[in-house]
């Protein structure tokens, strides 16, 4: 009986604690951090130059873009065993998965296209030509739209997932780097690395609602390079990673105003929330660590060394 209780406690405890998965671009590895103790548990060798990392909607699989292997690796989310690879096309950096977990959309920067992969058959079903150097990619929560941002064309390309064609383009500020839909699907937030701005688009009209410029007292404006962007589940706060400015901008997601800048490690790149949304993790490429931010108090609480050049981050409940 005591054993059963012990096992139950063990499993309930592990069920509560989130696991933070971080891709290490230079170590060709995956760092696994305990979301409760905020400490590095282990590092697992994976494909070469891993960058974007995401969980399947059913949380059973982990997808990692192994850029130098020209493939997206599929890992078992429990054992971290490599289950196989997906034909992502050349040098995959970022990708997005549709809410049903049926398709994966990868941007191919060098070939100016988006590769669509069917996750059931693990086959590429189409390549969609987009602007020059596609980078950011996102799928709307209702699955109605797939957007790709092209860094050189400076456009958001709206792809219809039914026809798999570009249905609309919206011009944004220079070097659009990342895009995310608000959880209600009503807005698309796009960061421009060179423009130093965040453009908020209305999903229905595809027009700009507001443009936010970031400027931090005491930080050279050229260092303010917005990259990763996320909005919380209740659309209370949005977060923008500002790259070499070593800050995450906090935005009031209703009023669409910058309310704070939080200090992180160097070259802050991508972010992920814990399952309950109470914590946000950032990857800090140049200082080789991740920073845990308390989203209730809007305060960075701990930076954890993980390995060389952390790039992407995903949280497994």
């Amino acid at each position, binding site marked *: 009986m005591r054993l059963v209780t012990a096992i139950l406690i063990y499993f309930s405890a592990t069920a509560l604690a989130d696991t933070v998965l971080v891709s290490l671009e230079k170590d060709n590895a995956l760092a696994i951090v305990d979301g409760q103790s905020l400490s590095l548990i282990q590092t697992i060798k994976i494909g070469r130059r891993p960058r974007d990392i995401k969980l399947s909607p059913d949380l059973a699989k982990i997808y990692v873009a192994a850029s130098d292997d020209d493939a997206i690796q599929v890992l078992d989310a429990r054992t971290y065993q490599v289950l196989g690879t997906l034909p992502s096309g050349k040098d995959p950096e970022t990708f997005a998965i549709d809410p049903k977990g049926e398709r994966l959309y990868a941007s191919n920067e060098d070939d100016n296209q988006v590769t669509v992969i069917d996750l059931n058959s693990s086959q590429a079903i189409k390549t969609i030509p987009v602007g020059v150097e596609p980078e950011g990619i996102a799928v709307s929560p209702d699955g109605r739209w797939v957007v790709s941002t092209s860094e050189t064309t400076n456009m958001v390309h709206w792809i219809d997932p039914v026809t798999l064609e570009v249905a609309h383009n919206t011009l944004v500020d220079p070097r659009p780097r990342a895009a995310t839909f608000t959880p209600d699907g009503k807005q698309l937030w796009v960061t421009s690395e060179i423009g130093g701005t965040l453009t908020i688009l209305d999903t229905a009209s595809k027009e700009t609602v507001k443009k936010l410029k970031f400027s931090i007292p*005491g*930080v*050279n404006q050229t260092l303010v390079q917005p990259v990763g962007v996320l909005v919380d589940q209740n659309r209370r706060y949005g977060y923008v990673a500002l790259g070499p400015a*070593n800050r995450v901008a906090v935005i009031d997601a209703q009023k669409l105003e910058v309310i704070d800048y939080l*200090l*992180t*490690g*160097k070259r802050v790149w991508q972010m992920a929330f814990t399952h309950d949304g109470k914590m946000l993790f950032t990857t800090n490429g140049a*200082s080789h*660590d991740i*920073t*845990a931010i308390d989203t209730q108090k809007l305060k*960075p*609480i*701990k*930076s954890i060394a993980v390995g060389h050049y952390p790039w992407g981050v995903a949280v497994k409940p």
Partner: protein
Amino acid sequence: MHALRAFWAITWRELLRFVHQRGRFVAALVRPLVWLFIFAAGFRATLGIAVTPPYQTYILYEEYITPGLTGMILLFNGMQSSLSMVYDREMGSMRVLLTAPLPRWYLLSCKLLASTFVSALQAYVFLAIAWAYGVQPPPLGYLKALPALILGGLMLGALGMLLSSFIRQLENFAGVMNFVIFPMFFLSTALYPLWRLQESSPLLATLASYNPFSQAVELIRFALYGQIHLYALLYTSVSMAAFLLLAVWGYHPARGLTAARRG
């Protein structure tokens, strides 16, 4: 009873002096605030960042130097009280005090405690302003910092007292400024972490690590973030005991420099 009355009298006098010299109060606050608002803002970007205990994540330079500036208040006040002792001696009130039928070490300790309380009070006012400025350690840290502030204040006050037993005239206070306060302050971890000093000069880093002021600052820094820095605690306590013993010895009429001078 008698001893307690003496303690209150000395504390009262110290408080009165403090209240009456409002300029001194403001000056004692303005000094660290200038460092916080101007110096720290200017150096924010140049000092670079790294995570060092007790901090768990990256911090702005303002946050780093706040414990150091709190230490600065204790340092200046410790020295200022040594100045006041020289003044008291010149004015004769010291002689009156020391003729009280109580042990000399006791009277000197009372004087030390009294001025330390005043320093701690000023330190908290400074910390409150720093809080409003955005330097916000955990709330419990403010409570935990109190013993560290008292111990640090006592140590620096004892050093001041020791120095005052050497100083014959008020004018020599400028010397204390140049030869004690500035080297102690700049050659410490108040303004830059030890690893940063290590990068530019290992010798300076070593000297800074032996500087009792550094240890007092680290003690306050860790306490403010809820941690106890054992080494700093020991180092500060031992330094305090040593300075106090030497000061008591220095003030003894038959021994020390008072006697030597008279001779």
